[in-house]
Structures are given as structure tokens and as C-alpha cells.
């Protein structure tokens, strides 16, 4: 690894909190990662996994118990937030309620002692980018949630921070608006080409917005990968479950090659599975086979991989979702663009075939 490969670098961060009873809780437990210039990286995980604390440590809002934070080669660990080249977009937007949109956005520029004409030029530029021109005289209380969100974004972007930190910025919006803003955020980020760290518990947001995703659990990093690799090759059962839906069944490795291995399923059938690092598994090792619901199909012949019985079927419009009992486990099977007449009914005995790209294996834990 080259020395200056990363624009933002976090090394062995530890943050210990005292809970009300006085005992220590490790919110962040030895987290290290780097972000390249212009890259968008997401910290993804369930609530309480330490992702927001990690972001706040980078922004300077918490003092780390141990570890360092570097931005553009400078150790900023002991800097207060106002001396760090970071811009934070808060979950609650944190707009100043007593200032107009214009004054909110101009606030950071004025702290840099820019002239009034420069301030105005930059504010109007950014208003254009986030699509808010004409609203500069309004107060935050007069704006919709989506508009407030864009003001918060503009306010952070206008000071041109080296790193943009986003703390679940879309979580206060309703589902439709969130989808819209997700796309808009992606466009703005591409337009400006900013380096960003994004925190969310929504895997869809993480997949849409980021170049790389860091999955966290209990204060530790579980896996760091591109969205695609994360989905296809989850590191363990937790990641497989957290990113998308997954069905699990036990299997035993029967042979191992460089990029694939063969697994024997409980019903005796064998499956060849493509893997990136197949050599980490040993022959005869017991593993969990992961199958994505959308990669499973009902097959007419008895040539399918698994046999089962349909327990429920749910129609949701764009797809149909089935629960199938397979070898004592409940499998979910999603069928896109369903043609109801051709699909099995509750109680039917069915055979399932699985797309090779939608199957992988993880260690049993």
C-alpha cells in the first residue's frame, strides 16, 4: 500500500463511553480505513454499531479514546471541528432556525471572512446547484423536509470542505422523497466530485450512493468492499443477511479449486460455487450456503437443486414472494413480473433451481 494513497485515513480508532451505570462501553473498537480523493464511502450497519460515532470522531465532535485521524496528510486528531477541513450534514439538518436560507448558507463563508460580494456569488451558485434559488429569504420553518435537506447540504458544500460527512441525511424524509433525494444526492456528488463519508442503516442508500461500503457491527468493521462484491461475496452470515435478503442451508465442501468449490447439500445434491478466495475453505468443512431469493426459480423438472413445499404466497405488484419449506428451513423465493397462473399454489410440492451468480458460501459461526 502506497503511503499517500488515502486522502482521509482513520487508524485504530477507539471510543469508549460510560453508560449511566458507570461501566465502559466500546462504541468504536479499533476501526481503520481509508478514503481516496473523490471517493464516496459509506459506513453501513444496524443502530448501535458505532458508525455515527466513527463519523463524529472524524468530524471532531467526539474525542477518541485512542487512534488517529488524518485528512490530506495532516493529523487532525487534536483539532476542534472548526479547525478541521470537514463539512457535516446532520441527520436533523441542524439548520439555524433564526436565520434565513441565505444566512444559513452564508454562515460558513462569513466565518472565513469572505467579502459580501463573494459570499453572495457563492451562495447563489450553490443555490442553483441544489435547486433552491428563489427560496433564499425563507426561514427553515417555512421549508419542506426535502428543501431543508438541500439547504443543509448546500450549507456544508459551499465552504468547499475537503471531506463531506453525511450522518443519515435522508432518514427524516418519507419513502418517496428519500428515493428522489437519493438520486439527486448522487447527481450533486458526481457534479462536484467531492470526497465523502456517508453513514446510513439503509442498505439501498449505501448501494446507490457509494463507491465502497464499510459494514460495521458492534464497533468493528465486518467487511469493506464495492457494493457489488459485498452483495455477491458477503464475508459472513451477518453481511449476507444485512445486505439484501438471503436463504441459508448447511453444506459440506467436497472439493476446492482456485476460484470455486463444490458443496454437498443435505439432500445429497452437489453444487459448484464461484468464489473469489475459495482456498480459505478446506475439504470436508461444514459451511452455510447462501442463496438470494431473486436468484431462485421454480423448475418443472426434478432436475432442480432442492425440493420443498409452498407455505405462503404474497403478491406485491412488481413481484411475488413465496415461502417454501426446504429441508426443515423456510426459504424465501422472489419472482419478478409474476404471471400468477403459471406459479405454484400453497401446498404444492415444488423443485427449486438456483442461478449460479446468486449463490455463495460463508463460514458457520
Amino acid at each position, binding site marked *: 500500500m502506497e503511503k499517500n494513497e488515502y486522502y482521509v485515513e482513520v487508524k485504530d480508532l477507539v471510543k469508549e463511553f460510560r453508560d449511566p451505570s458507570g461501566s465502559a462501553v466500546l462504541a468504536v473498537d479499533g476501526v481503520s480505513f481509508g478514503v481516496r480523493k473523490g471517493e464516496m464511502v459509506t459506513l453501513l450497519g444496524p443502530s448501535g454499531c458505532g458508525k455515527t460515532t466513527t463519523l463524529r470522531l472524524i*468530524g*471532531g*465532535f467526539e*474525542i477518541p*479514546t485512542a487512534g488517529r485521524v488524518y485528512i490530506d496528510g495532516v493529523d487532525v486528531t*487534536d*483539532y*476542534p*471541528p*472548526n*479547525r*478541521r477541513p*470537514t*463539512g*457535516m450534514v*446532520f*441527520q*436533523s439538518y*441542524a*439548520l*439555524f*432556525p*433564526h436565520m434565513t436560507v441565505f444566512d444559513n448558507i452564508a*454562515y*460558513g463563508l462569513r*466565518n*472565513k471572512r469572505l467579502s459580501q460580494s463573494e459570499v453572495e456569488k457563492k451562495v447563489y451558485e450553490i443555490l442553483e446547484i441544489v435547486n433552491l434559488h428563489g427560496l433564499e429569504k*425563507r*426561514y427553515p*420553518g*417555512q421549508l419542506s423536509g426535502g428543501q431543508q435537506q438541500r439547504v443543509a447540504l448546500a*450549507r*456544508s458544500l459551499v*465552504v468547499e470542505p475537503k471531506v463531506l460527512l453525511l450522518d443519515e441525511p435522508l432518514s427524516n424524509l418519507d419513502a418517496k422523497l428519500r428515493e428522489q433525494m437519493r438520486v439527486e444526492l448522487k447527481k450533486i456528488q458526481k457534479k462536484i466530485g467531492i470526497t465523502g463519508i456517508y453513514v446510513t442503516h439503509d442498505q439501498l442508500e449505501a448501494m446507490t450512493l457509494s463507491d465502497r461500503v464499510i459494514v460495521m457491527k458492534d464497533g468493528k468493521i465486518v467487511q469493506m468492499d464495492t457494493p457489488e462484491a459485498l452483495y455477491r461475496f458477503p464475508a459472513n452470515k451477518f453481511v449476507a443477511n444485512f445486505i439484501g435478503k438471503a436463504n441459508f442451508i448447511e453444506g459440506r465442501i467436497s472439493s476446492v479449486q482456485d476460484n470455486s468449490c463444490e458443496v454437498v447439500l443435505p439432500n445429497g445434491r452437489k453444487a459448484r460455487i464461484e468464489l473469489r478466495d475459495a482456498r480459505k475453505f478446506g475439504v470436508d468443512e461444514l459451511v452455510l450456503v447462501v442463496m438470494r431469493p431473486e436468484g431462485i426459480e421454480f423448475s418443472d423438472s426434478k432436475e432442480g437443486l432442492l425440493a420443498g413445499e409452498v407455505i405462503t404466497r404474497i403478491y406485491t405488484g412488481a413481484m411475488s414472494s413465496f415461502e417454501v419449506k426446504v429441508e426443515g428451513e423456510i426459504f424465501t423465493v422472489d419472482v419478478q413480473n409474476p404471471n400468477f397462473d403459471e406459479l405454484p399454489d400453497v401446498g404444492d410440492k415444488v423443485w427449486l433451481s438456483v442461478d449460479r451468480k446468486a449463490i455463495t458460501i460463508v463460514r458457520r459461526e
Partner: protein
Amino acid sequence: MQYQLKQLKRIWNEPILFAMIVAVWLLLALFILYPIIMVGIKSLQPDGENFGLKVYKMLFTKKYFRAPLFNSLKLGASVASVGVLVAYIFAYAITRVNLPGKSFYRTIATFPIVSPPFVIALAAILLFGRNGVITHKLFHDRLNIEIYGFWGLLIVETLAYFPTAFLTLEGILQSIDPALEEASLSLGSSKWRTFWRVTFPLSMPGVLAAWLLVFSQSMADFGNPLILSGNFHVLSVAAYLEITGSYRIPYGAGLAIMLLVPTLAAFAVQRYWLSKRSYVTITGKPSAMRLLEPHIAVKAFFTIIVWLLIGAIFLFYGTVLYGSFTKLWGVNHTLTLDNYRYVFDIGFEYLKDTLILASIATPISGVLGILIAYLVSRKEFPSRRFMEATSLLTFAVPGTVVGIGYLLAFNQQPLMLTGTALIIILVFVFRYLPVGVQNGVAALYQIDKSIEEASIDLGASSNKTFWKITMPLVTPAFFSALFYTFVKSMTAISAVIFVVSGRWQLITIAILGSVENSDLAQAAAFSYVLIGIVILAMFGLRWITNLFSYQERVRRAMA
């Protein structure tokens, strides 16, 4: 330990913040801790020099000293019990029962909080005293009521302090989700059973808190017992007389400590023990009120209690108002403006001095209070919790103790302040500091912390963030702290009576003088001028809050 070092390192990076913390600590140590410690030290020096426990031995063995302690505790417990009972019924009526004219009842019931302290005692004398309209005129002395003593004080202090209990209980009753009561009703409980099994247990922490609050207020009360206690000696007055009457400073200090211990204990229990045991989470917004339409008899019961209470307040304040226009109370009830002429003529000096001193102290106290609130609720530094506790301490310390402390602490070089205006201002500033701190902390609690973080993230210093972001957002809380400090300074007596001098006169001292000269009509006129100022200040507060609060600005922009 290492963490604290890191905190220190952070603060060191912000020199203004660091200087501010040091400065606040110096002020708190010098003007809050030091005087109280002086009281303790003096009580341990029976002859003024050598240390010994003789004072305390005497306080516990001599009946002369034991009686005030016993009396104060008895009075405090009685006032607290009666006051909380009355306040509970009143608060329940206001929050749960469908009665018309609520906001009117509420305003009237809370008025004693801001009124001068001994107006109610004065009214009691005018009504039930030797020349009282009820005892003397109505019943021609056949009614054997002794207003001077325990019963008089019980009635007067209950009227004076039940409003505090009412506000506490109103808050807690409002924060109990009505859905809980509805759930109980739908599960088959009667309203009566629902009250005793759901509502009352949930409000229990509030009841205890209110009880302790009123208990402390009654213990600390000085104005009412000074003119109404008769032979029923209480600690605050006994300590005052020991020091100003008999010049036995160690004994005065000892009595002050006896007064301090129970009030401090009550404060500590309420703040650090009780607050953790509340079932109700205060979310800041009271849950939507749903009013019960109770049985007619129940409604009648509440109506009668509310009317009785409101009636008593009107009777007491009305009597004083009427009295202020009479020639000589009890003897000659011809209406006259002479008393007011006297107040604005001879009494003008008192009025002017009080206004000047209170007007200087108020903004200082308010700004300092908000500043401390900001430091303790938004900044991390070693000794943060201790700073908060110290700044709130004067809530728990009776005025008498503060007054004696200031008298003892600042009558020698290098801090020779006795007799100056400064010492009076300092008493005002630090005595009412907790209001600013508490209002500030409450207001800051409502403001999303990330708003200030956003400011710092955008390059503003802590200092700039405070003035540009925090201060505008807490303006309403700040002004209400100013109002309270001003009113309390105008009506203060227990602490300042120890530090006043001939050069600076206070209106409350003038009222006391008039009462001592049995010139009750004049005292009534002084009191009503004071009440007039308080009411003016109230309107001033409303006007100024509207002028400066951003909520108003935003509202106007939206209209």
C-alpha cells in the same frame, strides 16, 4: 484520567473558553462557596478565635435554641403537607377536569410567586390582627383567633408557597399520557380506581418533589415569620436576631447552619435521588390534553376548592389594596391617597435605590446564568458537574444563610464591601443566578445539539457560536430569567437585610419599618407600588420577548 487530560488539551486549544471557565469558577468560589463556608467556620469559633463545638452543644441543649429548630421543622412539614394537598387538587382540576375559566384561575394562583413576600402576612394582620376587619369589626373580638404564631404562619405560608407546588404538579400531571388513564378505564377500572392505581402513583415523584420544595421554602421564609411569628420562634428570624440584636455572631451562624442542613438535604434528595426515579419522561411537549367530564358531584368538589383558593387570594390581596387607601387601619377607614403620596415623596429614595440596584444586578445575573448553563450543558471539561451544582446551590441555601455569609465574608480587607452598593448587587446577582442557569439548561435541552455543532463545523469558534447561534435561540428563556431576577431582587428581604446600610435603601426594608411602626396602611401602599412595578415588568417582559425572539420574527415572515 487520560481522557480528562485530553479534555484539557482540547480546552487549551480554545483560550477564550478556557478563560471563561476559570473566570466563572473564580466568581462561584468567591461569591457562593466562600460566604457559606465562612458561616460554617464562624459557628465553630464560639469565642471568635479558637475552634470548638460549644455553639452546637448549646444549640442542642438550651431550650431557647432548640425551640426554633423544632418550630421551623414543624412549620415546614405542616406547610408542605397542606400546601401539596391543596396544590394537587388544584393542579388536577386544571389539567384533568373540564372547568371553565382555567387560564384565569391559573394566573391568579401563581401570582403569589412574584408578589412581594410579606403581602400575605400583612393581609393576615389587616384581616385577623388586633384591629383586623374580621376579628375586630365583624366579630367584635369575640372570635378567639391568634394570628401571630403557628396557625397564622401555616395559613399565610400555605397561600404563599402552594403555587410552587402547583407548578411542579401541573407539569407532572400534564406529562402523564392520558392514554394510560384511558387504557385503565377500558380495562374496566372506575375513574376513582384509575386515579389511585394509575394517575397518583405516576405523579408520586412530583408529589415528593413538590413537598420538599415547599418544605425548603417554608424553612427559609424570613419575611412572613418576621412580622407574624409572635412567640413562635423560627430559625431564620432567630438567627437574624442573634446577629443584629444580640451581636452573638457564632450563635447566629450556628442557627444558620441548622437552617442550612435540612434545606440542603431536601434539595439533594429532590435533585439527585428523586429525579432519577421519575416514571415520566419529560419530552418537552405536554401530551395532548384530554379532559374528563366527571360526575357532577366531583365537578362541584373541584369547583368549590378552586373557588375557595382563588377567593382567599383575592380576599388577601384585595384587603391590602383597600388598606393602602385608608387613613388608619382598624380605626379610621376614610379613603385617602395620603399613603401613596408618602411613598412617592419620603419613600422615593427607597424606590429609586431599589430600582437602580435591581436594574444593575438583573442583566449581570441573567448573562452569567445563561453562560454557565451553556458551559455545563454544551462543553466538556473537568469539574463540569460540580460547576452546575455550585451554581444551583443558592436555590437550596436560605437567604438568611447567604446574608450572614456575605456579612461575615466581606467585612474585612481585601474584600471590604460592607455598606457599599456592590455587596447588595452581588447578593442579587448570585442569589438569583440559579434561575438563569436552570432556564438556560432547560432551553438548551430543547435545542438540538447538532445546531451548534453545525456552527462549529462551519468554522465558527465556541465563542462566536454562543453569541450568534445559542444566545438568539435561548432569548425567551433568557428574558424570563431576567424578569424573575428583577422581580426577586425588587422584593428580596431575607439575604439583603444583613448587608443594607444607610446609604442604600431598599423598598422591602421600608415596608418592614412601616409594619414595625404599626403603620399598616403605609406598608400596604408600599407593597402595592411594588406590585405595580412587578406587573409593569411582566408586561415589559412580554413586549421585549416579542420584540427580540426569533420565533416572532419567523412568525411575521410567514404571515
